[in-house]
């Protein structure tokens, strides 16, 4: 593959697509697929076939369009977005390409949910066919790789990433450029690149969506990283629970190998790079980098003390770069447009955009990409459209089991790494779960502690036994049988786990408890002293839903 050949593919593809005057894009990411979007696409295909307009009307399966709660979503070349489309709607949708929109299906796009977004990571999501490399290439795909390989030194690539201010999107926010630089300086003939796609936080589905909607973007980011740090082998560690993402990644790797973007001597340079998949098998702790490495090596996914850091001694004892899916997905645009371009977006310390999975008790649930620094209020009430059924906002949970619950008085806080940490939560991977007055914060804390206990690997004592004891206390509070003494024990355990656990899982396991204790102390008190659950969740027999 030479730069010219890449251009040729792009041109051919654009010419091919230019033949169509009408286009209908159907979301075939997991969210819409589970609402039968495949049958919608099939019906549209069939309808176009029977109308004999195949040569001018293209029906394309594309990635996630964001508003999962309204799926299946369909967009048309005359700029209309349709929601909750059924197979039977296909004639009407096709008719509308040359006429009036189908009013009953129209999903307005002049609303904050779409208008407030800024798409860098998701620029191709919902636009290109994730199963065709040509479509990615036609959308400027792999030009950043070519640029890096043919015009930039390894140092320059790292400098550009450093300049962008990009920080790890997996949760902790470690500066990406610095990480790359450390790995590039590590001595060793063999180095590895790993993509952490073991999206573990419950309530987070950003990475899954990126992998399903634009897998080549992640590969391109990994390739550039491999070139920059001097690695020739890479693994994508992806959750086995994401079969569609796995299928599309496998397909993308095969395609990239076929056209010579993966393999030996890429673009005629000395750079060779191979990517293989490794399937996670249901262990949250494998999001921790040393545990992830153990898992890639085929072992039990237990973390080990650091140092040595993976950048020095990682996979098979070799220097290893580990970044998360979204981090890699940011690389190509940074190289294409320059680090300074990227750094214009966001806040002083948190640059660029962040993809969030908005879920829970909020009108619009789905995937959004926003500039860093946007306020929680904008997220929940403008983009999210507020709380349904006229109920009152209570908290928004960020950072999953390592994060915290942010109450009303945090609503005007900007969403960036530092502000969230100051408020007792973390950015995490980007799950954002909105809760209203129907949620009990003790119950939420218990839920997360239950999660941490089940996911504790058991290697270190504080986490293994501490999470059990904490969950027991939270359960007792929920059953109205706890005493003030139990609350004291709970606080002691929070402190112990935070300071003595071996890895991040144990160290951050107290966060959901600490943040709810801080902001919703009166709910704990009500359970303990008055034996009452203000939200009416605890101690109630489970009722019917919806």
């Amino acid at each position, binding site marked *: 593959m030479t730069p010219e050949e890449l251009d040729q593919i792009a041109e051919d593809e654009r010419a091919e697509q230019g033949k169509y005057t009408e286009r209908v894009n159907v979301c075939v990411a997991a969210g819409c697929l*589970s609402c039968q979007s495949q049958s919608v696409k099939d019906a549209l295909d069939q309808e176009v076939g029977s109308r004999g307009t195949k040569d001018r009307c293209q029906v394309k399966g594309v990635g996630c369009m964001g508003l999962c709660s309204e799926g299946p979503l369909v967009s048309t070349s005359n700029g209309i977005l349709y929601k909750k489309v059924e197979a039977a709607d296909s004639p009407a949708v096709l008719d509308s390409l040359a006429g009036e929109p189908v009013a009953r299906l129209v999903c307005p796009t002049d609303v904050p949910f779409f208008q407030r977004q800024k798409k860098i990571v998701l620029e191709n999501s919902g636009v290109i066919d994730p199963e065709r490399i040509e479509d990615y290439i036609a959308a400027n795909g792999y030009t950043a790789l070519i640029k890096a390989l043919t015009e930039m030194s390894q140092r320059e690539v790292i400098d550009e990433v450093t300049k962008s201010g990009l920080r790890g999107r997996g949760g902790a926010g470690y500066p990406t450029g610095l990480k790359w630089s450390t790995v590039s300086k590590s001595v060793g003939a063999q180095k590895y690149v790993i993509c952490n796609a073991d999206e573990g936080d419950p309530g987070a*589905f950003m990475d899954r969506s990126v992998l399903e909607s634009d897998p080549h973007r992640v590969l391109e980011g990994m390739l550039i990283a491999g070139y920059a740090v001097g690695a020739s082998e890479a693994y994508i560690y992806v959750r086995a629970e994401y079969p569609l993402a796995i299928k599309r990644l496998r397909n993308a790797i095969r395609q990239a190998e076929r056209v010579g973007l993966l393999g030996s001597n890429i673009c005629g340079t000395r750079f060779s790079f191979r990517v293989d998949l490794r*399937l996670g*098998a*249901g262990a949250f702790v494998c999001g921790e980098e040393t545990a992830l490495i153990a898992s890639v090596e085929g*072992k*039990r996914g237990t973390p080990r003390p650091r140092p040595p850091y993976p950048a020095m001694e990682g996979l098979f004892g070799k220097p290893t770069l580990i970044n998360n899916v979204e981090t890699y997905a940011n690389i190509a645009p940074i190289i294409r447009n320059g680090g300074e371009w990227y750094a214009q977006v966001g806040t002083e310390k948190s640059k660029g955009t962040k993809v969030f999975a908005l879920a829970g008790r909020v009108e619009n649930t789905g995937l959004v990409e926003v500039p860093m620094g946007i306020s929680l209020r904008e997220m929940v009430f403008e983009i999210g459209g507020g709380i349904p059924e006229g109920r009152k906002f209570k908290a928004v949970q960020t950072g999953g089991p390592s994060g915290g619950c942010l109450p009303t008085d945090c609503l005007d806080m900007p969403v960036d790494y530092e502000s969230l940490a100051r408020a007792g939560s973390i950015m995490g991977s980007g799950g954002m779960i909105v809760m209203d007055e129907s949620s009990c914060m003790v119950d939420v804390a218990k839920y997360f502690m239950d999660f941490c206990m089940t996911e504790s690997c058991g290697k270190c004592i504080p986490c293994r036994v501490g999470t059990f004891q904490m969950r027991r206390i939270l359960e007792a509070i929920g059953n109205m049988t706890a005493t003030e003494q139990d609350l004291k024990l709970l606080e002691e355990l929070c402190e112990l786990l935070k300071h003595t656990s071996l890895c991040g899982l144990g160290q951050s396991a107290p966060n959901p408890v600490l943040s709810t204790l801080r902001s919703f102390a009166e709910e704990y008190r009500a359970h303990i002293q008055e034996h009452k659950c203000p939200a009416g969740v605890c101690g109630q027999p489970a009722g019917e*839903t919806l």
Partner: protein
Amino acid sequence: MVSYVAKPVAPSQDKRWKLVDATIRRQGAQPRGLIEALHTVQEAFGYLDVQALRYVAMSLRVPLSRAFGVATFYHFFTLKPAGEHTCVICMGTACYIKGAPQLLDAVRKDLGIAPGETTPDKKVSLLTARCLGSCGLAPAVVYDQEVAGKVSTAAVREHLKKWTVA
């Protein structure tokens, strides 16, 4: 490396062992391929039994106890055969606050089994997932690989009835 232990023979003539052998070969018969090989076994046979663990361990030169340790560390792997149908209830945060516990409760009651168990007639296995990533559609349930969103207690009961009434 000299092989001191003879290459093990597949536990049976079952063709599915060919799939497992292919994965083992692709991993260069190295210990690092253990998890990949276990995935293949589970995909082919539905679960991992002691026989399969022994075969994979010996083929990849992995100590037996480590193979068992790995197989039981990861919750995706199961050592018991699943029922004819599986019902997975997502217990992710979004699903949890939108009523997954009530769904689980209803299913437990209807089937009389706990998560991780299979009904005595081997018809249905009940599982929970830590998050399916279908949070936009919470609460979510997977019926035999198919994800359903915004599931109500009535809906899940209805679906299970289809499986259990033969």
